C-alpha cells in the first residue's frame, strides 16, 4: 500500500506464515463446517435478540411509559445505551482510519473486526434514539425531507446534528469496511466450492480480480475513505456530547464535553475491541495474528485515554468550583455524594483506578488481567453515561427533583442490544474473514520487495532474520491467487 516499507521494524505476525497459509487459515474459519460452539453462542445471542424485538414491540405498542423514564428524568437507559454504543464504535474507526493514516502497521490484524464492531455498535446505537421517541413512526420528520408543510427540521437542535453525525458516521464506516473487504471477498469467491457461496461472494466482490489498476483504485479509495473517516472519529462523539453540552442544565452545560466524550469513546472502544479480540483469538487460534504486541499497544492506548477521562472528571469538579455557580457546584457534589453516589464511584473505580494497572508491563501483557480490565472499563464507561443522564434527577428546582429506577423493559432492551450486537458479530465471524488477509500479507516480511536482501541492509539486529519462506508469485497482494 505505501510506497516505502520499513525494513522489518518489528514482528507483527508471528509463526512466520506463508502468504498461502494466511489465506488458508483465515478463509478456513469461514469455510469450515459450522462449529458447535458457534451454534450455541449464536443461539444464545439470537434468543437475546428476540427478547429485544419483543421488548421493542411492546414499547411501540404501549408507549415509553413501560420504561422507567419519568419527570424529570426524560432520558435514561435509552440515551445511556445510545451514547455507550456510539462510544464503542469509535475504536474501530480509530484503528482502521487514523492508525492507517499514521502508518501503524500493527493495526492490520485487528482492524477488520474492529471495524465490524464499529458498524454493529453503531447499529445498536441507532436503535435507541429510533425507538425512544414517543411516536417512533414519525421519526422521519427529523430528516429534511420535502413535505406538504414546506417545513424544515430545526437545525438548531443537537438531536438533528446527531442524526447527521451518526448517519454520516455509519455510512462512511460501512463503506470503508466494505471497500476493505473486497479483495478478501474475492478470495473467498475464488475458493468457494458451492454455487451459492460463489454467487453470494461473487456479487459482493464486485468483479475483483486483483489487477494492478484495481489495486490502484482500491488503495486510493481506501485512502480517501480513511481521510473522510478520520475527522468523523472526532466529530461524532463531539456532536453526541452537544446533546448535553448545549443544554442549560447544570452538569451538562460544560465545554469540556466534546473532548471528554471523544476520549471516553476511544477508551471504551478499545476496551471492547480488546474483549472481543481476546475471545476470538482464543477460539479461532489467531495468536500469531493478534499478538501480545498488539494487545499491549491497545492497553497503552487505554491507559492514556483512561487518564484523559480521569482528567476530565477532575476538571469538571474544578470548573464547577471555579464557576461559583451554585447549581453547577451542587450538580457535581450531588453526583459524588447524592443518592446515586454508587454509580459515580463505580465509574471512577472502573475508569480511573483500574486502568492504572497497565503501568505495569507484567500486568498489561497478562491476558487474564487485560480481559477483566477491558470488561471493567466498559462497565465504567456505561456508568459514566448513566451518571451524566441521572444529573436530570436534580436540577434547578428542588420541587421537581425526582428519582429514576429502570424497569424490566429497560433491562431487556439494554441486554437485548447486546444480543443484537453479538448476533451480528457472530454472523460476521461465520461469513466474513475476520482478519484482513490482504492487509496482513502486506505486513509479512516477504511482502517487502527487498526481503531477500534484507540481511544486507537491515541494521536492526534486534530482529532476528526470518527464515526464508517461499514466495508464491501472484499471491503477495492476496486476491486472485489461490
Amino acid at each position, binding site marked *: 500500500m505505501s510506497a516505502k516499507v520499513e525494513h522489518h521494524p518489528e514482528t507483527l505476525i508471528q509463526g512466520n506464515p506463508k502468504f498461502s497459509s494466511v489465506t488458508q487459515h483465515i478463509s478456513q474459519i469461514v469455510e469450515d463446517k459450522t462449529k458447535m460452539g458457534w451454534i450455541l453462542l449464536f443461539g444464545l445471542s439470537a434468543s437475546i435478540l428476540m427478547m429485544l424485538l419483543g421488548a421493542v414491540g411492546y414499547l411501540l405498542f*404501549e*408507549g*415509553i*411509559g413501560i420504561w*422507567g*423514564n*419519568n*419527570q*424529570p*428524568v*426524560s*432520558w435514561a437507559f435509552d440515551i445511556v445505551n445510545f451514547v455507550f454504543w456510539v462510544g464503542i464504535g469509535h475504536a474501530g474507526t480509530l484503528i482502521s482510519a487514523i492508525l492507517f493514516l499514521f502508518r501503524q502497521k500493527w493495526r492490520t490484524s485487528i482492524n477488520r473486526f474492529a471495524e465490524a464492531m464499529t458498524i454493529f455498535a453503531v447499529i445498536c446505537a441507532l436503535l435507541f*434514539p429510533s425507538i*425512544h*421517541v*414517543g*411516536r*417512533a*413512526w*414519525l*421519526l422521519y*420528520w*427529523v430528516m429534511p425531507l420535502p413535505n406538504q408543510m414546506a*417545513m*424544515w*427540521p*430545526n437545525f*438548531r*437542535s*443537537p*438531536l*438533528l446534528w446527531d*442524526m447527521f453525525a451518526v448517519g454520516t458516521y455509519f455510512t462512511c464506516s460501512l463503506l470503508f469496511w466494505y471497500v476493505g473487504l473486497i479483495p478478501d471477498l474475492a478470495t473467498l469467491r475464488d475458493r468457494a466450492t458451492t454455487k451459492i457461496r460463489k454467487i453470494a461472494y461473487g456479487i459482493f466482490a464486485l468483479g475483483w480480480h486483483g489487477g494492478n489498476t484495481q489495486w490502484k483504485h482500491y488503495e486510493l479509495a481506501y485512502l480517501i475513505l480513511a481521510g473522510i473517516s478520520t475527522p468523523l472519529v472526532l466529530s461524532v462523539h463531539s456532536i453526541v456530547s452537544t*446533546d448535553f453540552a*448545549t*443544554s*442549560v*442544565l447544570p452538569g451538562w452545560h460544560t465545554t469540556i464535553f466534546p473532548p471528554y466524550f471523544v476520549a471516553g469513546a476511544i477508551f471504551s472502544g478499545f476496551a471492547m475491541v480488546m474483549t472481543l479480540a481476546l475471545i476470538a483469538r482464543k477460539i479461532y487460534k489467531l495468536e500469531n495474528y493478534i499478538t501480545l504486541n498488539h494487545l499491549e499497544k491497545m492497553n497503552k492506548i487505554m491507559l492514556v485515554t483512561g487518564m484523559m477521562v480521569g482528567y476530565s472528571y477532575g476538571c469538571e469538579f474544578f470548573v464547577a468550583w471555579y464557576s*461559583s455557580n*451554585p*447549581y453547577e457546584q*451542587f450538580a457535581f457534589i450531588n453526583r459524588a455524594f447524592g443518592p446515586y453516589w454508587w454509580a459515580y464511584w463505580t465509574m471512577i473505580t472502573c475508569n480511573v483506578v483500574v486502568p492504572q494497572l497497565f503501568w505495569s508491563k507484567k500486568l498489561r501483557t497478562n491476558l487474564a488481567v487485560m480481559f477483566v480490565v477491558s470488561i471493567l472499563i466498559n462497565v465504567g464507561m456505561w456508568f459514566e453515561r448513566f451518571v451524566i443522564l441521572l444529573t*436530570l434527577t436534580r*436540577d*434547578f*428546582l*428542588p*420541587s*421537581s*427533583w*425526582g*428519582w429514576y429506577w429502570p424497569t424490566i423493559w429497560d433491562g431487556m432492551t439494554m441486554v437485548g442490544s447486546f444480543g443484537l450486537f453479538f448476533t451480528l458479530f457472530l454472523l460476521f465471524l461465520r461469513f466474513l474473514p475476520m482478519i484482513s488477509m490482504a492487509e496482513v500479507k502486506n505486513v509479512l516480511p516477504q511482502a517487502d520487495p527487498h526481503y531477500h536482501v534484507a540481511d544486507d541492509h537491515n541494521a536492526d539486529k534486534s530482529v532476528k532474520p526470518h527464515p526464508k519462506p517461499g514466495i508464491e508469485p501472484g499471491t503477495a497482494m492476496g486476491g486472485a491467487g489461490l
Partner: protein
Amino acid sequence: MSDEKLNGKLTGKDYWRSLDQLAETPEFKEFLHREFPEGASELRDSVNRRTFLSLMGASIALAGVAGCRKPVEKILPYVTAPENVIPGIPQHYATTMPFGTSAYGLLVENHEGRPTKIEGNELHPSTKGASNTFMQASILGLYDPDRSQRIMEKNAERSWADFVSFWRTAFDRFSTNQGAGLAILSESFNSPTMARLMREFKAKFPLATWVTYEAVSNEHVFEGSNIAFGSSLQPVYSFDKAEVILSLDCDFLKTEFDNVSASRGFGAGRRITTENDSMNRLYVVESTFSLTGSSADHRLRISSSKIPAFAAALASELRNQGLSLAVNTTNSGEFDSKWLKVLASDLLKSRGKSLVCAGYRQPAAVHALVAAINESLGNVGASVVYVQPADAALPNRGELTQMMTKISSGQVNTLVVFGGNPVYNAPADLNFGNALSKIENTIHLSMYRDETSRAVKWHVPMTHYLETWGDTRSSDGTASVVQPMIEPLFGGHSNFELLNLVVTGEDQRGYDIVRKTWEAVLPGSFEKGWRKVLHDGLLQNSAHQPVSVSADGLRINAALSALPKSDSGLEVVFAVSSQVYDGRFANNGWLMEMPHPITKITWDNVAMISIATAKQLGLTSGDLVQLTVGGRSLEMPVWHVPGHADNSITVELGYGRTSAGRVGDKVGFDLYSIRTSDASDIATGATITKLNREYFIACAQDHWSMEGRPLVREANLEDYRKDPKFAQEMVEHPPLESLWDEHSYAKGNQWGMSVDLNSCTGCGACTLACQSENNIPIVGKKQVSNGREMHWIRIDRYFSGSVEDAEMVHQPVMCQHCENAPCEQVCPVAATVHDKEGLNVMVYNRCIGTRYCSNNCPYKVRRFNYFNFTKDTPEVVKMAMNPDVTVRFRGVMEKCTFCVQRISEARIKSKLESREIRDGDITTACQQACPTSALTFGNINDPNSRVNKIKAQNRNYAMLAELNVKPRLTYLARIRNPHPELVTGAKVEHHG
C-alpha cells in the same frame, strides 16, 4: 338554558343526554343497561391497574371505533337545530352548588348542551367569580360513570313508578298515624324549598323523627353561638375588613366552609403594591400544618386539644390588657407568654378591625369564647356579622345518637336517608349498618350505590346538582336557584323531589316544587323576577339581616369549665380531607390525584406527625403503624411533617371507601372506623405501634428545602421597606446578553403573566381549573409515584426555618413562556416554537416525543404522555372534555399554553367587533379560579394593562432569570408581616 328550556315547555322530555344517545349507538345503549360499566369487573387486576387508573377509571371498550393511531370520531348534524345553540360557541348559565349549610354561586360553561367547565359567579358573594377545588372537580362528578343508574329494591331493579306506589302505601299509613315510626336522616342544607318541605313534614308528621347528620360540619360553630348568644347563628366573616386575624385551628383558606369568600377577603387584605402599603397580619395557632398556617405571619404549633386552654389564656391576657370580657378564664401558663402578650396587644390595637376565628374541630365552648372575644373587640358588625340561618337544617351529630336508641327500641319502621353515607361515615360506636337491618323499610337517595345504598331496602339514584332544579342559600343568606345544565344523565331524582313525595305523597317535578317556594319569596312580577334570579344566579339583596348579639358570660364560663382537661398523651385529630372532603368526592379522580397541599401525597391519606414525635416513636415516613384510640385500631402509614405539633396525629377522613366506585375504592384508610361519637374531632389517649412494614406512597414532591436557592423570594415587611428592591437584587449574575440578535416582541399583543406569591395560599384551585379547562388526564398512583403526573400547573411547596417550627411557602409553577426558551432550541422537529405574541406554543401534531425539551426546561413544567392516558376514558367522561382543547395522544409532550384557546376566542370576538383585544378580555383558567387573585394575565406590551402595572412593582422578579431565558411569567415576592416584637432576625437572605 334558553328561556324555553327554563319553562320546560319546548324541549321537555326531548333533552338528550349525550351526542351518542342522539346517535343511538349500540355502545351507549349498552352502557346505559349494564349495571357496571364494562371494565369495572376487570379493575382489581393489578396488571391492569395502570390502565384503568390512567383515565378516571376503566374502559368502555369502543369496539370498532378505536383506531390504531387516531380515534375515529362520528359527527352528527342536528336534524332540527335547537334555538340559541350555535355549535362551537359555548353558553354560560348561572347556578349554585349546595354545600352543607353553605353554597357556591357558579357560572357554568356549556358546549352544545353539555356542561364542561365551572367558574365562580362574579355576582355571587360566596365566590365573587373565584372557585375552589371541590367546585372545579364537581364537573367530573357529573359525568362519573359509576353513578347509580337505576332504582333498586334490594337487588331487584324497580321503576320510579314502583317506588312511588310503594311510598304511597307508606304515606297513607303515616298520614293517619302522624308519622309514628317514620324517621328522616338528612344531610344539612340551607334551602328555602327544602326548609319549606321540612316544615311541612314536621307539621304533617309530628311524631316522626327528623335527624340532620353530617360527619363533618360547622355544628360546633352553631352550638357555640347558641351558648354565647342563646341562638344558633351563622357567623359571616369579612376577612378583608380585618387587619389582625387570629385563627385557632381554623383552616379558613382551604378546608373550612366558605373558604372561597374567606380567601377572597384574606387575599384583599394581603395585597400590597408598594412597600408603603399596609397588609393584614395573620396569627395561627394549630396542631396540623394547614394552608392557613402556611400563610401565617406567626404560627404557634400546639396540640388541638390544648387550643381551648390557649383561647382561655388569650382571654385572660386580653382582660389583663384592659379588654372588658365577661368570662372567667385563667391562663394556664403553658404558652409562650410574650407571644400571647403581643397577640393580645395587636388584637386590642385593632379593635373593630381584627378577627378571631376557631375551626370546626374545636368544641362549642371555644366558639362561644371566640364569639365573646370578637364582640368585646368590637368586631361584631364589622369583620364578622351573625345571621339567623332561617332556611337551614343545622347538623347535629347528637340527633343521630338519639335516633339510634329509637331504632334499637323498635320505634322506627321507616327510615328515609337523603344523601349522605351514614353506613360509611357515622360514628363507629353507633354501628349504623347493623341498626339499618332492624328497620323494616329503609330508603336511600344517593348519587352512588355506596355503602349505605347497599345496606338499605330501597335505593333511589340522586341527580347531580348540575342536573337538578333546586334552590339554596349561601352562609350569609343570599338565595339562589340551582338550575340544571343538562337532563339527568342516568335518570335519578333530586332530594327536592323525593322530600316532596315523602311529604305530599305526590310525584312532582323539581321545577314546579322550586317555583312554588319562590312564588312566595319573589317580590313583584314572579316571572320577571324568576328569570332575573336564573340569569344572575342569585336573588339580589337576599342576604339575611345581621342579628344583634350580646354574649352571655355565665353560659360561656359554664361551657368552658365543662370541657375535659387536656391530657398530655397522644391526640388524634380527625381532619376533613382537602382532597375528598368527608369521602363524598372519593370517586373523583381529579381530586384524588390533586397533591395534598402540605404533604403533596396523592391517592392516599396518612397519619401526619411531627418530626420530634416521629423520632421519639422511632418512625419514618411511610412506616405502617397500628393507630389505636378509644379501643379501636387501624393500620395506616405515618408521614412526618415539619411544623406539625408534637404529640398530635392528624388523620384525614374520607378515604378507605369500599363502595365508592372504580376510582375511590380501597384507596387510603378509613378513619371513620376509629372515630366515635364522643370523640369525633379530637380524640386523646391514642397509641401508635410500629408494625415494621412499609407502605408505598405516591408523593408528588418529596423534597422539603429550597436548598438556599432564590426561587421563592420573601422578606418581612419591615425589611422590604428598608430594601424595596430586595427581590430583584437577590441574585448576582453577569449581564444577560445574547449571542444572537433576538427576536423583537415589540409589536402587537404580547402575553405575559404575573403570580403574586404574597397572595397565593397554595389552595390548588388553579391546578384543577387547568385540569378541567385543558382536558388533562389523571394517571393513577403508580404513575404519580413515577413522577408522571400531568398537571400543567403545580404548586411547589417548600419549608424554611427549623424543621420543628418550619415556615411554608407555595409557588405555582407552570410554563414560564420564556422568550429565549431552552425547549425550543433543542426540538429537532420544531414542535415547540414561539408565536408572534410571545407564546411558547406546543404543536402536538408535530411532536415526535424526543422529550429533549423537557430535559432542557429549567422549570420542569413539561409533561409527557408516557402512555395513551385517555385511551380508556369512558364515553360519558368524554363529555366533560373541553371541545376547544385537543386531547393529547401518547408520545407527545404537553404543557401550559396560557389557555391559548381562550386567547383565540377573545381574538375572534374582538375581530367581529372590529376592535383591539381589551385588557381583561382574556382570563386564563387558573387566573379565573384563583380565590386570592394572585394570578394576572394580559398584554405586557400595553403600558396600561393590569399585568404590566403589576410587573412594574418592585417585588417583581423572574425565577432563574440568570439563565437568560427571559420568562414571560414573573413572580411578586412574598412579604410576611410579623409583629416587630416577635421578629428574631432579619429575613432577607441574599443568595449567591
